[in-house]
């Protein structure tokens, strides 16, 4: 029967059901559906066994009803029954129902898996296809358990049909995504790589996806795919448009495959083999050249397919970030697209350029397009495109063009879509702060922000401007003058009143000399806004007033009158009432001296992470705030000095009446926000005081190096200190094998290791804590010349790209050849948002890891102890306890150290003794130790006796750090 006839007959009847809503009520449709469901249910439950055909019919109806948007809670069993039918159509409907409706329901899954198993074993390619599609569609863990071992065999078997191979490849990919641990790597992997050479382009297309995902996780194992992918790509891009027959799409040869191959290549650094590298460069050049050729067709499909390949090629060029020539060409190409008549292309060009802006090779080239981008901001009709333009302006901003970009963003803000206003406000605030040379410009910009888009100025923004004004005395007078002027506008935003109130309260005296802004005028101006403001703002203004009492004794009585008025003293709001009462009382009884002390100017805020950045990061998804990290790093290098945020910087929403002025005389510092493990990562990143990174290039010209901050405290936070921090963590690993070795705002390094005799294996986990990719990620384990002969370390390279939020793992195989002193160093380099990061931490591979505990009796112990009485064999250390002297913890530490803990050996039960053998490849060294705590003095005496002086020395050093 022809399709069209089918269509006729079916639609005639189904029309009524599906379109029942048209003209009739929704209820009527539901009623009809319910009736039908009841009918099907009764058929399924009926005494008479249904034949396959009816079963299929009803299952299909259920599916239809489900797809109309109604819930289906039965029929699963019947669908499963259909799977074992020999009739193709029954089987097919059964599989479809399961693909659409089954969510790994454990009871059914077993039955389904059984049916799938039979079909896979049937050798009937159509049945196998159905089964594989079902696995790929459901992809549950149970299915992975059942089939992850089987499918690779199907995939690489010589006699498997091409179409089955395609399904098998993608099916395996789905299972690998669900449960990577269940997909066994093995011989098949090398054969899969060679599918890149397959004659059937469909097979290559499917296999490439699989290989890409596998290569991401096991780059070493799939390294050979690089040259194969390059040669395949080269054959495609140089082929004539007719060569690939049905795989040519609107005159573009195999666009999907090309994109996938370019994607695969992005899992690797540029090829090392010069021949392969040359060939790849040729391919990329060809693709760029083709973009300049006149189109072979006017159809949009032609240009889309062609440009899809082009954009993927540009992504690869950006990923490699090594060929300035290609980068600049890519940038020029995107520049052309910026003015293309296709909206889609303009969108994508803006988007890609954002990434290019962070490459040092192309940053300047991107900047040349500033006028076009600004124009896009003004003229684009689609908000998503304008959004891209804002992002790009933000990414291309540097000192040279900051003023222009900020001005344009402010301009745009006046008419910007509500949906993106807040984000623009944050971006403007950040750029203004980051690139401010002259702080008057910064103050102007922020006040403009409040004027234009006051509603979208979050607390963080106006807190920040106050922090900066307070910390920089060169701008305080200007700020006071400017806010005073701004407040004179008849209608000004409440945020401006807050900023104005705060700044005049602190620095109003700086402009009080001018008769146009005398104390009384200042006060009247502020008080004229008072009644229009919300409670928190009014609370803030009350604080300003009491500050005025101190600054300007001449208006004290005016202020006292205001405070004394009923509307204050009897205010319904408790906070306002309390402030009014307290401030009035304070102004009445306190002497001038006391007032001056209590109401002293705020001390500078201890600087750290800008809370605005945190806010923007929270707002924006991954990948869009690349450039921000730079600021963060620049800043954190000399700002993290202080321990805790002042109350105003605290990222959490303060209570509405939070006291910004900090009336308690001492600077208000909130207790450290408890670092919650269940909070979002971001919050954690910004609120904890994790050790800073060592190699954060400290920007000496940083905007915030205010005199107060350049105190000795800050200096001590320079990189040298962070090494110490890392050292501390290093010592923690002496007695344990797992944990976090290092953490900063970008990266977390975790360790998990095991040792046996003189061998060990360490798993290093690198976690990208940001939402942006790390590129060229290269960890290297370095042994010093002294260390090298004693310790053999083998590492596997890791994927050079670490995606935002992703974690990669590296294995280090360790062999201890002879006893050693130093620890190897783990050096990590990567590129993050355009900046090169380089950091080193000591890797906690210490001699005691090769301990084998030895149990022995008291008699044995002391006999050996005496044998090792040569003064060179004994090393002793007496030291003060650094931790509470808890016997249980001490025991755990000695066991963690690796030696046996010998109970009832020492005549003094308070003492601890241990024994063990250090295994190296060349020798074994017996070790005895004795730890004598002195609770009263809070001291320990640690004695180590081994047959080798250096070993005693090293072990004593290591263990002394532990208590």
């Amino acid at each position: 029967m022809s399709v069209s006839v089918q269509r006729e007959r079916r639609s005639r009847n189904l029309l009524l059901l599906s379109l029942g809503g048209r003209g009739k009520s929704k209820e009527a449709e539901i009623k009809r559906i319910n009736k039908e469901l009841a009918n099907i249910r009764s058929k399924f439950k009926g005494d008479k066994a249904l034949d396959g055909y009816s079963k299929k019919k009803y299952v299909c109806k259920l599916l239809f009803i489900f797809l109309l948007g109604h819930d289906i809670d039965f029929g699963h069993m019947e669908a499963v029954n259909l799977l074992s039918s020999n009739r193709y159509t029954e089987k097919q409907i059964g599989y479809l129902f399961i693909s659409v409706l089954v969510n790994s329901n454990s009871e059914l899954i077993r039955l389904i898996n059984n049916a799938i198993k039979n079909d896979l074993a049937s050798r009937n390619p159509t049945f196998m296809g159905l089964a594989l599609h079902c696995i790929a569609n459901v992809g549950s863990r149970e299915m992975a358990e059942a089939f992850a071992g089987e499918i690779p065999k199907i995939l690489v078997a010589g006699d498997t049909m091409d179409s089955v191979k395609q399904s098998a490849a993608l099916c395996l990919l789905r299972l690998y995504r669900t449960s990577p641990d269940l997909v066994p790597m093995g011989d098949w992997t090398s054969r899969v790589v060679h599918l890149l050479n397959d004659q059937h382009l469909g097979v290559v297309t499917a296999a490439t996806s699989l290989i890409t995902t596998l290569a991401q996780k096991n780059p070493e194992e799939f390294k050979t795919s690089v040259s194969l992918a390059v040669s395949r790509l080269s054959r495609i891009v140089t082929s004539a448009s007719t060569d690939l027959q049905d795989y040519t799409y609107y005159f573009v040869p195999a666009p999907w495959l090309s994109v996938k191959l370019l994607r695969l290549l992005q899992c690797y650094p540029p090829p090392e083999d010069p021949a392969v590298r040359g060939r790849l460069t040729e391919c990329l050049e060809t693709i760029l050249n083709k973009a300049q050729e006149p189109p072979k067709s006017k159809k949009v499909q032609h240009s889309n397919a062609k440009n899809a390949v082009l954009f993927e090629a540009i992504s690869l060029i950006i990923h490699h970030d090594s060929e300035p020539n290609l980068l600049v060409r890519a940038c020029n190409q995107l520049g052309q697209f910026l003015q293309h008549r296709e909206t889609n292309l303009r969108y994508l060009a803006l988007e890609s350029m954002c990434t290019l802006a962070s490459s040092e090779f192309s940053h300047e080239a991107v900047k040349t397009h500033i006028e076009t981008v600004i124009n896009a901001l003004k003229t684009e009709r689609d908000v998503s495109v304008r959004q891209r333009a804002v992002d790009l302006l933000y990414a291309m901003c540097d000192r040279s063009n900051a003023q222009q970009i900020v001005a344009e963003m402010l301009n745009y803000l006046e008419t910007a879509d509500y949906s993106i206003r807040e984000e623009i406000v944050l971006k403007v605030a950040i750029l203004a702060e980051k690139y401010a040379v002259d702080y008057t410009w910064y103050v102007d910009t922020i006040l403009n922000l409040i004027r234009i888009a006051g509603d979208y100025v979050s607390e963080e923004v106006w807190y920040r401007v106050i922090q900066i004004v307070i910390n920089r005395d060169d701008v305080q007078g200007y700020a006071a003058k400017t806010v005073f002027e701004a407040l004179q506008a008849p209608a000004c935003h409440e945020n401006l009143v807050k900023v104005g109130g705060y700044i005049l309260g602190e620095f109003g005296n700086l402009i009080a000399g001018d008769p146009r802004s005398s104390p009384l005028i200042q006060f009247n101006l502020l008080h004229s806004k008072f009644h229009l403001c919300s409670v928190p703002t009014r609370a803030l203004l009350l604080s300003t007033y009491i500050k005025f009492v101190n600054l300007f004794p001449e208006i004290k009585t005016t202020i006292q009158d205001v405070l004394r008025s009923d509307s204050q003293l009897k205010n319904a709001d408790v906070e306002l009432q309390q402030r009014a009462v307290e401030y009035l009382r304070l102004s009445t009884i306190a002497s001038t001296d006391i007032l001056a002390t209590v109401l002293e100017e705020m001390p500078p805020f201890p600087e750290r992470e800008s809370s605005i950045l945190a806010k923007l990061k929270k707002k924006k998804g991954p990948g869009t705030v690349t450039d921000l990290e730079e600021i963060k790093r620049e800043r954190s290098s000399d700002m993290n000095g202080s321990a805790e945020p002042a109350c105003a910087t605290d990222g959490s929403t303060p209570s509405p009446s939070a006291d910004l002025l900090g009336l308690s005389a001492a600077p208000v510092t909130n207790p450290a926000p408890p670092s919650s493990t269940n909070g979002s990562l971001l919050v954690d990143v910004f609120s904890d005081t994790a050790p800073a990174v060592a190699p954060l290039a400290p920007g000496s010209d940083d905007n915030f190096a205010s005199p107060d901050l350049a105190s000795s405290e800050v200096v001590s936070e320079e990189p040298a200190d962070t090494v110490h921090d890392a050292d501390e963590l290093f010592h923690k690993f002496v007695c344990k094998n797992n944990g976090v070795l290092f953490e900063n705002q970008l990266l977390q390094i975790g360790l998990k290791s095991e040792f046996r005799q003189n061998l060990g294996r360490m798993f290093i986990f690198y976690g990208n804590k940001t939402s942006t990719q790390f590129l060229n990620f290269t960890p290297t384990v370095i042994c010093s010349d002294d260390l090298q002969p004693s310790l053999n370390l083998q590492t596997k390279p890791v994927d050079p790209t670490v995606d935002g939020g992703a974690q990669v793992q590296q294995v280090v195989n360790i062999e201890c050849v002879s006893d050693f002193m130093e620890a190897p160093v783990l050096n990590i380099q990567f590129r993050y948002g355009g900046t090169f990061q380089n950091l080193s931490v000591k890797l906690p591979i210490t001699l005691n890891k090769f301990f084998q505990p030895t149990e022995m009796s008291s008699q044995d112990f002391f006999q050996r102890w005496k044998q090792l009485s040569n003064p060179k064999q004994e090393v002793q250390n007496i030291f003060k306890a650094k931790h509470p002297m808890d016997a249980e913890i001490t025991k755990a530490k000695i066991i963690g150290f690796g030696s046996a803990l010998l109970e009832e050996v020492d005549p003094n039960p308070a003492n601890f003794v241990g024994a063990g053998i250090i295994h190296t490849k060349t020798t074994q060294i017996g070790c005895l130790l004795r730890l004598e705590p002195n609770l009263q003095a809070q001291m320990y005496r640690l004695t180590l006796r081994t047959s080798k002086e250096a070993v005693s020395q090293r072990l004593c050093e290591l263990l002394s750090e532990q208590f």
Partner: protein
Amino acid sequence: MSVLLPIWFFSERDLFETQRLRLMLFFFPLLSIQQMQFMLLFSRQGKLRLQKWYVPLSDKEKKKITRELVQTVLARKPKMCSFLEWRDLKIVYKRYASLYFCCAIEDQDNELITLEIIHRYVELLDKYFGSVCELDIIFNFEKAYFILDEFLLGGEVQETSKKNVLKAIEQADLLQESQNEDWGGLSEDIL
């Protein structure tokens, strides 16, 4: 996108590690290259006509996503660009006559090639049904699914050749006829 789970649990040897438990924040390994998260077909009236999910989601989430997305896409004017950011995903959509085809991909994925995935799918439907219309997809929904499965599997392009995809479907149709199936009968007593 960022799923945060501690990936290991400290062994009993780490008795004295409790005070730094917060350091255990570790990421679950995420695989970032994922061609497509889901595909939705819906009408101008906002009626869902086909849904294909390549990531496991609960029914509730699916419904919520569908509702939000349909609203967002329908609100867009013609001539606007075919891509939009939505939650952590990127939406690529195109309208063909009364139907919207809408795919969700990840941030790093290729938008234009996804647009052409949509087009190729439309071509496949068109070729199979002979000038396809919304009703074809409503009444032969299973065919629409079968064609999609031949073309895209697990969110990845499986076979881009129009000939090969349709050959597979036609073979199945042949099997159906040889088994003397009458599809028209299905609907006769639906009401």
